[in-house]
C-alpha cells in the first residue's frame, strides 16, 4: 500500500504541475490586486474624490439604461414608473431601471460593489447616514460645482439639502454653504403617528406622555387591540430609529459631533429617561412577539385593526388607506374615518426623525451614464417635476412642491411631512455609521425583548460606539 501511494505520487507531472500552479496563483493575485482601476468613467480618480463637472457633458443619443439601486418598498416602483413615464418625454432613448434589494441588504449591496470599484448601478440611493462612508472612500462624485451651476438651492429648506448631500455633516436644522455636496434629495420622509380616531378620538395626543396614556386606555378598553405598534427589529436601523426618536423627544442627544463624543452623551439623564420610557412604558403596550417588527409588520397591525396608535415612515404608509390591504373599511373614506395621521407628539424637545434618501452618482459608472445621471438630477429637481413626483406618490424636497396642492392633497399624511420639516433631526453620517447603527440596533432590541437590562443596554451602546469612533471603525 505504501509503495503504491508513493508510485502514485510520482505519476503526477511534478515540476510542470508546480510551475503551472505557481503561474495561476501569481496571475490570480495580480488580477486581484490590480482589478478595478480601469473600471468606468471616473474610476481612477474616484479614490481622491472625483468631481462632477459643473456643466452637463454631451449626452448620447444611443439607447441607454440608467440604473438606480434602492431597497424593496413601494416608492421604488413608484420612482421607476414615474421616471419612465416623464423623463422619457425629454430623453426618449433612456430607460430607467430601479433595482431593489431587501432592506437588510441595502447597505451591503451598494458598498460591496463600491469595494470592488465596479458598480452595476449608476445612481445609488443612499440613506443620509451612508454619505460619510461613501465620500471618505471616494465612491460617489462630488456634485458641488454641478449644484452651484444647475440647481436653485434657495428653493429648498437648507437642512433638507444638507441632510441628503452635505459632508461633513451639517448641524441639525442648518446647511454649511462652504461644505461640499455629494447628493440631491430624492425622497423626503419622517415618522407619522397613526391613531385610531374611532377608538381614541379625533384629536391626537399632543405630548408623548399623553400618547402613552391614550394607548394604555385604548388597549384596556379594546381587548385584542394593542396600545402601540412601532419598529423594534434588530435588522436595518429599525430599533435604533425608535430609540433615537424617543431620545430626541425627551431632550437627549446621540453624540457631540464636534469632539466625536458619545460616552456620557447618549447615556446621560435624558437618554436614560428615554430608554426607560421606551422599555418600561411603551413596550408593555405592544403586541406579544412584536419584538422583531419593522415596516411591514406595523402596517399589517394597523391595517388589521390590531393597534390603537402606531408609528411609521410616511413613505411606507400609502398601503394603509388602500381598501384592498385593509380590514378597516371598503373605501378610502371609510378607512380615513377610523385612521388619523399626525405629527409626533412633543415632550421635553420638539424633534422628529429625518428619513428619506438622496440620489448620488457612482464614481465607477461609465462617463456617458454619469452624464445622463447629472441630466436626470437636474430634470428631477425642477419645480414642475417635483410637483408631478408628489402627485405620483413621492415626497419632494423643494419648498414650493411641499406647499403645493399636488403634494398636500396626494395623501392624508403629506401635511404631516410638511409640518415636520422644521423639526427633523438625523443620526451620524460618519464612515463608521454601519457599525454604530448595528451596535444601537442590537442593544435596543435586546432591551426591548428582555435580553438586557435597559440601563445596561444604553451604557453598552455608549461604550461600544465610542470605541468604534475612537478606533476609526477598527476592531470587533
Amino acid at each position, binding site marked *: 500500500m505504501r509503495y503504491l*501511494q508513493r508510485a502514485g505520487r510520482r505519476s503526477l507531472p511534478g515540476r510542470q504541475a508546480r510551475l503551472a500552479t505557481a503561474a495561476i496563483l501569481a496571475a490570480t493575485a495580480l488580477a486581484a490586486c490590480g482589478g478595478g482601476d480601469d473600471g468606468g468613467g471616473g474610476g481612477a480618480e474616484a479614490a481622491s474624490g472625483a468631481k462632477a463637472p459643473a456643466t452637463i457633458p454631451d449626452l448620447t443619443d444611443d439607447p441607454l439604461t440608467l440604473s438606480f439601486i434602492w431597497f424593496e418598498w413601494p416608492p421604488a416602483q413608484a420612482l421607476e414608473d414615474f421616471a419612465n413615464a416623464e423623463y422619457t418625454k425629454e430623453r426618449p432613448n433612456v430607460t430607467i431601471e430601479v433595482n431593489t434589494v431587501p432592506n437588510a441588504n441595502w447597505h451591503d449591496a451598494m458598498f460591496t460593489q463600491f469595494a470592488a470599484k465596479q458598480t452595476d448601478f449608476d445612481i445609488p440611493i443612499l440613506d443620509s447616514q451612508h454619505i460619510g462612508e461613501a465620500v471618505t472612500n471616494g465612491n460617489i462624485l462630488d456634485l458641488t460645482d454641478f449644484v452651484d451651476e444647475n440647481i436653485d438651492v434657495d428653493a429648498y429648506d437648507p437642512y433638507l439639502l444638507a441632510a441628503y448631500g452635505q459632508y461633513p455633516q451639517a448641524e441639525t436644522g442648518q446647511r454649511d454653504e462652504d461644505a461640499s455636496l455629494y447628493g440631491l434629495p430624492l425622497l423626503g420622509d419622517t415618522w407619522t403617528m397613526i391613531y385610531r380616531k374611532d377608538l381614541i378620538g379625533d384629536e391626537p395626543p399632543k405630548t408623548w406622555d399623553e400618547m402613552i396614556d391614550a394607548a394604555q386606555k385604548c388597549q384596556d378598553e379594546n381587548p385584542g387591540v394593542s396600545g402601540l405598534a412601532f419598529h423594534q*427589529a434588530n435588522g436595518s436601523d429599525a430599533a435604533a430609529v425608535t430609540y433615537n426618536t424617543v431620545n430626541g423627544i425627551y431632550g437627549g442627544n446621540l453624540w457631540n459631533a464636534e469632539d466625536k463624543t458619545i460616552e456620557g452623551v447618549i447615556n446621560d439623564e435624558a437618554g436614560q429617561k428615554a430608554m426607560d420610557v421606551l422599555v418600561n412604558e411603551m413596550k408593555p403596550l405592544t403586541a406579544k412577539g412584536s419584538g422583531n417588527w419593522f415596516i411591514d409588520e406595523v402596517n399589517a397591525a394597523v391595517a388589521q385593526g390590531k393597534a390603537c396608535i402606531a408609528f411609521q415612515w410616511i413613505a411606507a404608509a400609502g398601503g394603509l388607506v388602500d381598501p384592498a390591504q385593509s380590514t378597516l373599511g371598503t373605501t378610502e373614506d371609510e378607512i380615513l374615518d377610523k385612521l388619523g395621521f399626525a405629527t409626533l407628539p412633543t415632550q421635553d424637545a420638539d424633534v422628529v426623525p429625518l428619513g428619506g434618501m438622496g440620489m448620488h452618482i457612482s464614481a465607477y459608472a461609465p462617463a456617458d451614464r454619469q452624464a445622463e445621471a447629472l441630466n436626470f438630477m437636474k430634470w428631477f429637481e425642477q419645480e414642475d417635476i417635483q410637483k408631478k413626483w408628489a402627485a405620483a406618490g413621492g415626497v419632494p424636497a423643494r419648498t414650493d412642491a411641499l406647499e403645493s396642492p399636488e403634494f398636500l392633497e396626494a395623501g392624508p399624511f403629506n401635511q404631516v411631512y410638511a409640518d415636520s420639516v422644521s423639526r427633523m433631526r438625523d443620526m451620524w453620517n460618519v464612515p463608521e455609521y454601519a457599525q454604530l447603527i448595528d451596535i444601537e440596533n442590537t*442593544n435596543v432590541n435586546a432591551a426591548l*425583548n428582555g435580553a438586557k437590562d435597559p440601563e445596561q443596554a444604553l451604557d453598552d451602546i455608549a461604550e461600544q460606539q465610542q470605541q468604534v469612533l475612537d478606533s476609526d471603525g*477598527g476592531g470587533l
Partner: protein
Amino acid sequence: MVAGCELTAMTTTTDHPVQEASAASPPAPGRSPRLTDRRLAVLFISPAMLLLLTMSVFPLLWALYLSFTDYSATRDVPADFVGFQNYADVLTSPQVWQRALTTLVYVTGAVALQTVLGFGIAYLISRRTRGRGVLTTLFLVPMMLSPVVVGLFWKFMLDAQFGVINSMLGSLGFGQVEWLTRQRTALISLIVVDTWQWTPFIMLIALAGLTAVPKYLYEAASIDRASEWFRFRHITLPMVWPLLLIAVMFRAIEAFRLFDLVYILTSGGPGVSTETLSFHVYKVAFLGFNTGLASAYGILMVLVVIVLAQFYLRYLNKLKEG
C-alpha cells in the same frame, strides 16, 4: 469549503493503481504519439484543478495573507502588516467567545436532535417492506429546499401573532409563545428549523447503513432467540455506528458555519443572543469592512474545524481498527 477539504482528503487514497497502470501504458492505436495517457490525464484534470486553484486555494491563501494586515476593502489606504495582532484580537475578544458559546450550544443541540431523529426514522423505515421508497423520498423533501426559503416560511409559521404554530397551540389551550423574540426560544427555534431541514440527511446515511447489515446476522440471532433490544444493541447499532459518526461529522461542520437561517429568522436577535460565529464574521467583514480582521476570524474558524475533524477522524479510524 472545509467539508470539501475533508471530502478531498478522504478520496485521494484509492486511485493510484489505476493511474500507475495507465501512466505506463503506451498511447492507444490511432492517437497522436505525443498525446500519452499521462498527458491526456493532465489535460482532463486541468480544468478541475484550475477551478479549484482559482476559486478555493487562491482565496484561502489570499485571506491568509490579509489576515496579517489591517486591510479594509473599502478604505482607500494601503494595507499595513500587523503580524498576529488580528488573531490576538479575535482570540481575546469576549464578543467572539460569546458567539462561540452560542455556536457550540446550537451545534450540539441541532446535531444531537438530528442524529436521534434521523436514526429513529431510518430504523422505522428499514423495517417496512412496502412503501419504503415513497416514504424515503417524502422525508428527503426538506433537504432539497434552499435554507433561505426554509427560513422564510418558518418565520411566518413561528410568528407570535399570525403564525400557524401559535394558532395550533392556541386551539389546544396553550398561550402564545414568542418563538423568535425571546432569548431561549429563539435559539431553540433555530435548532428546530435546522433539525426539520437536515434530519433527512442523517436518516439517509443511517438507512444506507441499516440496509447493509447482513441478514444472516439477524437470522442467527433469531435462532438463538435473541430479544429485539439485544439484536438492536449488539447487531444493528455496532454495524451502523461508524457510518452514523461520519454523518454526524458532516452535519457538525455544516452547523458550525450556520449563517442563512440566523440571517432570515432572527438576524442574530434578540440582541446578539443567536449570533453565531459565521454571522459575526459577516458583520465584521461587511458592516465594518475590517477585511484583515475578518480574514483572521475566518481562518481561525477553519483551523478549529480542521483540528476537531482530525481528532474525530482519528477516533473513527481507531473504531474501524478495533
